[in-house]
């Protein structure tokens, strides 16, 4: 029998859970490490002051305030809505879709004034520590994480409390170093994104981590933020941030353990990062629907080890795998092409042709093509992923469009209305026709060759 409740945290009340580096009015500007009991006290006080409602759009930028808000919302039996971006249009569309929702923020986001909202930094959360860790119903819907579906309508991934707790315990076992030492954690990823949520918000509630509230972007910011934390350190990041760090030429404090996800990490970059930080880098394989699923030490191996507790079953049509686990609300289909090697290991042969990833966001090329062809004045066109250039940090979708009566600006505006900005094709080139074969097919090889010709011509 599974228990009907699970605790909000499994940390010792005296353990350090977070490290505040940015003064926040709600905390009286206090800086430095925070004990779990103080954190729980603040969560309880915040929960008492939250508005009534069913859903809270949690847009807090500061990681500690995000975590406080995340837990207080759950304690008040409300559900956290975690959008992929903080755009005002996103907030408005969520409020339209989820009746009885409000925006919870820390003063750093732009909030449309006509929306119901609460700025945590207008409250005072200081007070007595609380040594009783609250219990949460296992089936309570703690959060809905949105994947920026390329359809324009974000996909809602349901996260009951049991899913979050169980997956965190599994993640801690497979993603963190063994032993009881407390690690200082720095993350370059936002708390609202599933990768940031799992690692920088949930892991510290259930394993021996003390996470910094900052989210540094530039290499110099990362270096200074790391230096302010006690060793041993853990860095949670993405290939984009790690590559920038490596190429910056800066010297950095040692980091014992690095976790990387959201996009494929080349083995050479993994080795470079390990040498730079004098630590071990684990690359994690996952998706917003399931969360983290497998990991590998990319500098040394190309096989992925699937976490215990997750089951991969081949689909009957042979076109992928079902992923299921006792803690997941439903099974999910994995469309990536993998080769099973036995012993819970697999090799990733290729990402699905349709689903692409840009800056940690997944979108469908097929849907982007639908959006393109629905634009006024478009006669023909193709959105596709160009070959990844070795010198580029990030590959974005590109588009070749036949639209004699439209303009590039109008097409970009059309995409912007329906798509997350990272998927807006770059470059978007207007052409007279596409090199289609007689049967109307447009083979990838032909398309790419044509793209190369056109882009050379378009260069100023």
């Amino acid at each position, binding site marked *: 029998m599974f228990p009907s409740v699970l605790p909000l945290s499994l940390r010792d009340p005296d353990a350090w859970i977070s490290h505040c580096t940015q003064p926040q009015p709600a905390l009286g500007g206090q800086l430095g490490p925070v004990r779990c009991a103080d954190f729980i006290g603040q969560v309880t006080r915040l929960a008492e002051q939250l508005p009534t409602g069913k859903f809270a759009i949690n847009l807090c930028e500061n990681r500690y305030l995000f975590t406080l808000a995340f837990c207080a919302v759950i304690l008040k039996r409300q559900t956290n809505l975690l959008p992929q971006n903080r755009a005002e249009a996103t907030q408005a569309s969520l409020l339209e879709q989820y009746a009885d929702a409000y925006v919870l923020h820390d003063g750093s986001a732009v909030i449309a004034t006509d929306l119901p909202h609460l700025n945590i930094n207008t409250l005072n959360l200081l007070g007595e520590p609380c040594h009783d860790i609250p219990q949460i119903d296992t089936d309570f819907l703690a959060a809905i994480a949105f994947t920026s579906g390329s359809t324009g309508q974000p996909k809602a991934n349901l996260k009951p409390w049991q899913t979050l707790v169980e997956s965190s315990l599994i993640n801690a076992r497979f993603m963190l170093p063994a032993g009881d030492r407390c690690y200082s954690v720095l993350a370059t990823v936002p708390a609202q994104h599933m990768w940031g949520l799992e690692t920088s918000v949930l892991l510290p509630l259930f394993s021996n981590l003390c996470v910094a509230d900052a989210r*540094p972007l*530039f290499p*110099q*910011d990362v270096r200074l933020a790391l230096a302010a934390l006690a060793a041993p350190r853990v860095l949670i990041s993405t290939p984009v941030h790690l590559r920038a760090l490596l190429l*910056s030429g800066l010297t950095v404090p040692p980091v014992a353990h690095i976790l990387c996800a959201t996009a494929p990490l080349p083995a050479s970059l993994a080795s470079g990062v390990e040498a730079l930080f004098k630590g071990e880098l684990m690359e994690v394989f996952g998706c917003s629907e399931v969360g983290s699923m497998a990991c590998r030490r990319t500098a040394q191996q190309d096989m992925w080890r699937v976490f215990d507790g997750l089951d991969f079953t081949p689909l009957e049509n042979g076109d992928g795998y079902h992923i299921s686990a006792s803690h997941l609300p439903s099974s999910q289909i994995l469309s990536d092409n993998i080769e099973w090697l036995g012993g819970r290991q697999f090799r990733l042969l290729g990402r699905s042709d349709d689903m692409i990833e840009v800056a940690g966001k997944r979108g469908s090329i097929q849907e982007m093509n639908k959006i393109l062809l629905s634009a006024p004045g478009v006669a023909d066109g193709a959105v596709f992923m160009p070959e990844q250039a070795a010198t580029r940090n990030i590959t974005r979708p590109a588009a070749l469009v036949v639209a004699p009566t439209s303009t590039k600006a109008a097409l970009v505006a059309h995409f912007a209305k329906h798509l997350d900005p990272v998927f807006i094709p770059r470059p978007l080139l207007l052409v007279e026709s596409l090199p289609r074969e007689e049967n109307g097919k447009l083979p990838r090889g032909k398309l790419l060759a044509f793209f190369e010709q056109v882009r050379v011509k378009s260069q100023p």
Partner: protein
Amino acid sequence: MAEQTSAQLEVAELLVEALNLEDISAAEIDPQEALFGAGLGLDSIDALEIALAISQKYGVQMQADDQNTRSAFANLATLTDFIHAHATK
């Protein structure tokens, strides 16, 4: 559009190269137009790419916490001024 200075054109060329903006020519970037949001529509990943290119070419390390950096990213003109105030190579 305001006239570009030669220093601004040089930085514009760096942006086009670093960000794969191959359908825009460097000379087309308005020195006063917003780089992020509406203007050129850049995002935080682009900011990271720009910072990296600038550190490699001019030896300037950008810092998000620094108010100067935030205002530097406003447009091509402010970015060029920032680089020239801090360049070490």
